[in-house]
């Protein structure tokens, strides 16, 4: 299907005056052969050339050197580019920016229309391809009323209507929530298995790459690793060096190996792990089944409400009233009195104490973002009050600019709000609005930039020259410069590569260590398990669980009903228990799980 030989793509970067400042080699000497019907995952950091490579395959770009054959057509031949695009479809990252039609069926028809397909054939193709992605019921809906996952399914359908032989997913799941990701991944898988369509799946999610036939790793434009998932994920050091990560279960296996236990290297999922455990234990001839049941059932577990109440005792509450942020029975109705009236928040009670490190989770549309916008007074509750340091923030003479300086809010994709000519000026925006003296403004900006791990040489750069991960850090620094006591972040790691995510959470951890209270929204359960101390779960506008992180994952079934998952570690522990291993239920951090299993094997 695809034959790449020494493919090279380079372009000139120009400065403001249009002079060539450097030659960028986006793709360097890539040789790769992909046969028809293969499912290939492509991994690599942001800026590693993955997207450029995808565009070369779709003839959106033409290779500067080397030969690239797509289904027998030469990609360097300008005249063939329309035929190549017919054979290879592409699904982009942002669901909104690739839908042309104002109604679903019109968008699906866009490709066939461009190809001049006769009307009667087109009607069939549109119906058929909508059926394939399970969106037939939404034929006449406006794309604006669809969820992210549904929009991506429409985009896939639009590509399918052109009858391609190969579909490239260019980080198509990066902006979706877990259920949206699952929808897209399942469709890709089915198209591959049932229709024999070649799939190129570019992603930052290691768990998604596991199901591929083959994985290619790009680093700085070069193809540095290639092989089956088992082969690739056995090479842990190399992957980390390229800024990637391991699937959670593989990482645990690697951790066990590091402790000196001879554990298998090719573990990708829970089933692999269990059979390896079985092998280990058979080897040690241990009596597994004895004293298993006792351990898991003797432990008393209270209901969520019990936990919640016992957590916030009176002394805590008193302290919170004077120091923290308290939401007292707040409800929020969106556009009351109109046809769009919806109750987004419903009787929310929440106390954020000084020093908390909270993860806020919930399905898309459960009211998470709306709740956090209440916390710094951007939205006013329809009912109920919010107290900060004991004062009602919607009292007439309350100074809300003071509140906003003390409760910092970092929005989703905060880099999209950068505007100034230099990084320093952008970070200064917040403190300047506080009307502080210039010296103090700059001092705070310098501090904030250091806090997010950037160095002095970025001060005078334009924020738009930075990489995506750096831009996000500048945006966070812009909020930190206000010197907030409480920092709230709405999906801070969305769209970052594994390395970027790790770095970001290390920053949050260090901010917490210097005394900042942190609350972050996330869809990623590993990020909940590894970093948070306390978890809030929202569903349909209410906080349904509020408990220390260890307790929350005991409600696996309930979480699943709300479209949420438990971390891989919790799932692994559960599976192990079902297979007769006496492991505790409340392990959720990888480090703890590794230690426990090592001890278990050795005992």
């Amino acid at each position, binding site marked *: 299907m695809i034959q790449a030989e020494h493919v090279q793509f380079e372009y000139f970067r120009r400065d403001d005056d249009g002079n060539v400042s450097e030659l960028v080699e986006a793709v360097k000497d890539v040789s790769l052969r992909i046969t028809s019907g293969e499912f290939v995952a492509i991994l690599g950091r942001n800026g590693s050339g993955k997207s450029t490579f995808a*565009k070369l395959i*779709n003839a*959106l770009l033409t290779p500067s050197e080397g030969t690239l054959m797509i289904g027998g057509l030469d990609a360097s031949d300008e005249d063939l580019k*329309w035929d190549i*695009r017919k054979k290879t*479809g*592409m699904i*982009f990252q*942002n669901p*909104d*920016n*690739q*839908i*042309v*039609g*104002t*109604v679903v*069926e*019109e968008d699906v028809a*866009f*490709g*066939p*229309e*461009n*190809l*001049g*397909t006769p*009307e009667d054939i*087109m009607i069939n193709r*549109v119906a058929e391809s909508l059926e394939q992605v399970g969106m037939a019921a939404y034929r*006449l809906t406006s*794309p*604006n009323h669809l969820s992210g996952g549904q929009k991506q399914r429409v985009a896939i359908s*639009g*590509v399918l209507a*052109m009858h391609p032989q190969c579909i490239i997913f260019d980080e198509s799941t990066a902006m979706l929530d877990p259920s949206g990701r699952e929808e897209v991944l399942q469709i890709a898988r089915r198209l591959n298995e049932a229709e024999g369509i070649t799939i190129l799946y570019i992603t930052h999610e290691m768990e998604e790459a596991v199901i591929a036939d083959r994985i290619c790793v790009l680093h700085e434009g070069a193809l540095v690793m290639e092989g089956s998932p088992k082969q690739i994920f056995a090479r842990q050091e190399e992957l980390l060096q390229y800024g990637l990560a391991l699937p959670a279960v593989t990482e645990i296996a690697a951790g066990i190996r590091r402790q000196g236990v001879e554990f298998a290297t090719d573990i990708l999922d829970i089933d692999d792990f269990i059979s390896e455990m079985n092998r280990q234990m058979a080897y040690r001839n241990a009596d597994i089944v004895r004293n298993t049941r006792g351990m898991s059932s003797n432990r008393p577990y209270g209901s969520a409400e019990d936990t919640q109440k016992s957590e916030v005792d009176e002394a805590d509450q008193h302290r919170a009233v004077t120091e923290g942020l308290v939401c007292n029975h707040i409800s929020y109705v969106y*556009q009351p009195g109109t046809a*769009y009236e919806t109750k987004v928040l419903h009787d929310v009670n929440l106390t954020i104490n000084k020093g908390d490190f909270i993860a806020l989770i919930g399905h898309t549309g459960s009211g998470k973002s709306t709740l956090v916008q209440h916390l*710094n007074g*951007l939205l006013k509750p329809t009912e109920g009050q919010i107290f900060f340091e004991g004062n009602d923030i919607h009292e007439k003479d309350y100074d809300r*600019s003071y509140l*906003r300086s003390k409760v*910092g*809010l970092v*929005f*989703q994709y*905060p880099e*999209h*709000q*950068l*505007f*100034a000519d230099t990084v320093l000026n952008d970070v200064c*925006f*917040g403190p300047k*609005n*506080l009307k502080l003296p210039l010296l103090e403004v700059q001092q705070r900006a310098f501090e904030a930039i250091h806090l997010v791990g950037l160095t002095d040489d970025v001060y005078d750069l334009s924020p*738009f020259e930075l990489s995506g991960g750096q831009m996000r850090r500048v945006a966070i620094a*812009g*909020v930190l410069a*206000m010197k907030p006591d409480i920092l709230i972040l709405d999906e801070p790691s969305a769209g970052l590569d594994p390395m970027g995510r790790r770095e970001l959470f290390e920053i949050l951890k260090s901010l917490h260590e210097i005394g900042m209270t942190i609350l972050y929204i996330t869809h990623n359960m590993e990020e909940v398990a590894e970093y948070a101390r306390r978890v809030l779960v929202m569903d349909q506008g209410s906080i349904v669980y509020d408990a220390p992180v260890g307790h929350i994952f005991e409600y696996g079934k309930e979480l699943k009903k709300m479209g949420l998952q438990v971390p891989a570690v919790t799932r692994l522990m559960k599976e192990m228990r079902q297979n007769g291993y006496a492991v505790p239920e409340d392990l959720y951090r990888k480090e703890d799980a590794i230690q426990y299993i090592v001890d278990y094997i050795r005992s």
Partner: protein
Amino acid sequence: MIRDITIGQYYPAESVIHRLDPRTKLSLTFVYLVSLFLANNRYMFLLAAMVLTAYIIASKVPVRYMLKGIKGILLFIAASVVINMFFTKGDPFISLGVVTITWQGFRTAVFTMLRILMLVMGSSVLTYTTTPTKLTDGLEKGMRGLKKWKIPVHEISMMIGIALRFIPILIEELNKIMKAQQARGADYEHGSIFRRLKNMIPIFVPMFVSAIRRANDLALAMEARCYRGGEGRTKLHPLKYTAADGITYGMMLIYLAAMIAIRIIYTQGLIERLEQMQLPAALIR
């Protein structure tokens, strides 16, 4: 706020009007607008109102939904009524202290109000019953003749279509950016106009950047799906005239003829009567 305005939003329903060819509806709207400007007496307004009522009933768009759309322009209507009412010279009708309302002022005010109301309602039926894509298709096909004069009809209609699709997305984004800057202490409400304009920079720059990024992405996505202009393109639902369109065109011509006839008869009749009754010439306006 912006979301409350229902003018220009498609209202899905199954009706004769929904099924009409967009070109027919475009012509209908145009002719109706012309007829409203021709109207200069109550008989013509009566006929126009009757036709509009029939048109709205046939469209199956709920009247309440339409009236909600008009709310947004009430202020504009009120302003034009007040201006006409108080600033038209003529014979006094009611005197309220310093202000005097003239007969002519009253008459013009009422007619202006009717004209604006019917104009807005008449043209909003078009957008309520026609999806933006059909509307742009209709424009594209209806204006095909202009291509001869090198007017890029296809490109223009594609641009309108894309704009319509992205307006709600950009409004949402504007909202988000405004809040994000507010969270950093930005203030849009206080200070002089100059100050407030300056405070808009942190909103406009990111909006501009985002619009360009979206345009870039979209162009790429369109190219990936083999878009190369209007040449050789087919349509999922090509526009076709049906019998209903023919009948509508017929009724439209009859209506226009009737309006013109009333205008002529009324104008002449009034002059005759005035001559008999020897009233002041000022009333003939």
